[in-house]
């Protein structure tokens, strides 16, 4: 992921690197820690998903837009408004939830596109080798060196800013990044006996790729995809922050932070609340990805 993209955000976490062996701990304590290390962030991620996607439907959450100006700037803990209201009279808690929904939708979609397109192309390049590998990987080199900001501005101006277009713009990061990881993983499994055996028994390229290689590199890809989720959430925030992503009045954490910037000295909560939400979500995805990676590389 380049530029702002590539570069922005948590730099280079997508690069495949082995995590060192963790310290020798007492067996029981280590087991407990390992379980906590995966289940705690997994539970938190589930809770965030529930709050952002289901709670606004089933719970008493007011609409995030169209509030009355008469209710503007209510303080936190006002009746019916947990975090008060913004200057337009919209409920801040509701804007946080709906904003999170937008951020999560974007990051899930971008990661899924990256896994599907990048994973398949990278695995194909690593498996087939030769000039086709060269062409595919050079193409991704160009995309990685291409300043994502130019692309994001272009997409925003050409198609109009919005959630779907943000997804397209950010996919230009996730596809090459995951393709590189898929290729590296494929190079590692390509020489394994079962691949050679499958090749000798006359398995075709498509079947080989889909039935033999993909299932074996998928765990590693999924782990990096989880770490990538955090990066995408931050990037989406950056685009919305620059006014190129999701547009007000539709809330997203990025545009909430950007609009709170002007009120920073008077009412820092408009920056701090969405920032905290962004931070907690990214921490959870990073923790989950890290502990999966640690477990996976220990095997």
């Amino acid at each position, binding site marked *: 992921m380049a*530029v702002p993209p590539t570069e*922005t955000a948590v730099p*280079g976490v997508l690069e495949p690197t082995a995590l060192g062996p963790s310290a020798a701990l007492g067996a029981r304590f280590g087991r407990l820690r390992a379980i906590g290390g995966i289940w705690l962030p997994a539970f938190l991620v589930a809770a965030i998903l529930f709050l952002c996607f289901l709670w606004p439907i089933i719970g008493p959450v007011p609409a995030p837009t169209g509030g009355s100006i008469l209710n503007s700037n209510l303080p936190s803990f006002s009746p019916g408004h947990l975090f008060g209201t913004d200057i337009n009279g919209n409920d801040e808690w509701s804007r946080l939830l709906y904003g999170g929904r937008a951020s999560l939708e974007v990051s899930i979609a971008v990661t899924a596109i990256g896994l599907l397109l990048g994973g398949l192309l990278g695995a194909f390049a690593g498996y087939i080798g030769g000039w086709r590998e060269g062409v595919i990987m050079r193409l991704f080199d160009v995309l990685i060196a291409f*300043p994502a900001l130019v692309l994001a501005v*272009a997409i925003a*101006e*050409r198609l109009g800013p919005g959630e779907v277009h943000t997804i397209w713009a950010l996919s230009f990061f996730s596809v090459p990044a995951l393709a590189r990881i898929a290729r590296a993983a494929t190079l590692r499994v390509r020489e394994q006996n079962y691949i050679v055996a499958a090749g000798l028994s006359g398995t075709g390229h498509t079947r080989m790729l889909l039935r033999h290689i993909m299932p074996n590199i998928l765990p590693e890809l999924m782990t990096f995809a989880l770490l990538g989720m955090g990066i995408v959430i931050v990037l989406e925030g950056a685009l919305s922050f620059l006014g190129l992503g999701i547009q007000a009045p539709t809330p997203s954490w990025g545009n909430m*932070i950007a609009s709170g*910037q002007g009120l920073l000295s008077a009412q820092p909560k408009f*920056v701090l609340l969405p920032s905290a939400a962004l931070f907690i979500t990214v921490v959870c995805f990073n923790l989950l990805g890290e502990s999966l990676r640690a477990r996976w590389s220990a095997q």
Partner: protein
Amino acid sequence: MLRFLGRRLLLAIPVLWGVTFLTFLVINHLPGNAAQELLGINATPQQVHELSVQLGLDKPLLTRYVNWLHDLVTGSLGHSLASGQSVTSILGADLPVTFELVAFALLIALVFAVPTALLSARRPGGVFDRVAMVFSMAGLSIANYVLALILVYVFAVKLNWLPALGWVPPDHGFGTNIKYLIMPAVSIALSLLCFYTRQLRADLIQQLHGEDYVTTARAKGAGAWRVITRHALRNSVFGLITTVALNFGTLLGVTVIIEEIFGLPGIGHELLSAINQRDVPVVEGAVFVFALMVILANLIADLLYAALDPRVKYGSATN
């Protein structure tokens, strides 16, 4: 060595070409052009057309790109459509700002990352290590623009210690210059610092646990601290160099948003405003410089390998 250098620079050309061509296509497909942006919304179509002809915007896309390439080969990046200044002089004025920002951020990150990683790797799972790992995970998860705003709130709004935005060149007093630079640099440095710490720590632990030379050093009676700083660190430095080089592109991307928040007149800021003005030569120039810097960073990393590790020889055998 020279052959290796030449080969690497040759390989960089297609990537540079692809990046600039793609940028050209993308910017030229945006609605509106520089003439429209310069004249504003009240201009008549006639005026816009005349200025377009004057600026050479009516020529076909490929002709303009080939002209740009031709200029590039002769060492010129063309002239800004908005101000008429040469792009080289515009970028020449911006480059020191971005360069100082990036260098300062890298310096902060490395100065803190190396000792932290050494102390952590000395006793993995110890108190220091655990605290460092918790903090580095938290630091990795803070978006740089969030950190920038929090720093502004604390140090500029509440404490009034540092200026919230602006830029003073170093020749107007180095102290003042640093005062304006410190918050932008820290905003960029924190996530880098955390990332480098984690990478270096993992690498050091791997070296300390699995390598024969560590056993040898211990057997000859070298102390734990000496083994880790003189033996393990020297080998782990290569991983760190790779990480820094690979992240360089990301780092440059981050400067765009940070320069925007703090009002620094660097290349990122120039790029954003040039995109908005459809000032194609300036966008092309900035993108070209960004891509060139990323490629050079990777090349320097490879050369540093050779300088630091006597086993690495670049030439016909390894490449």
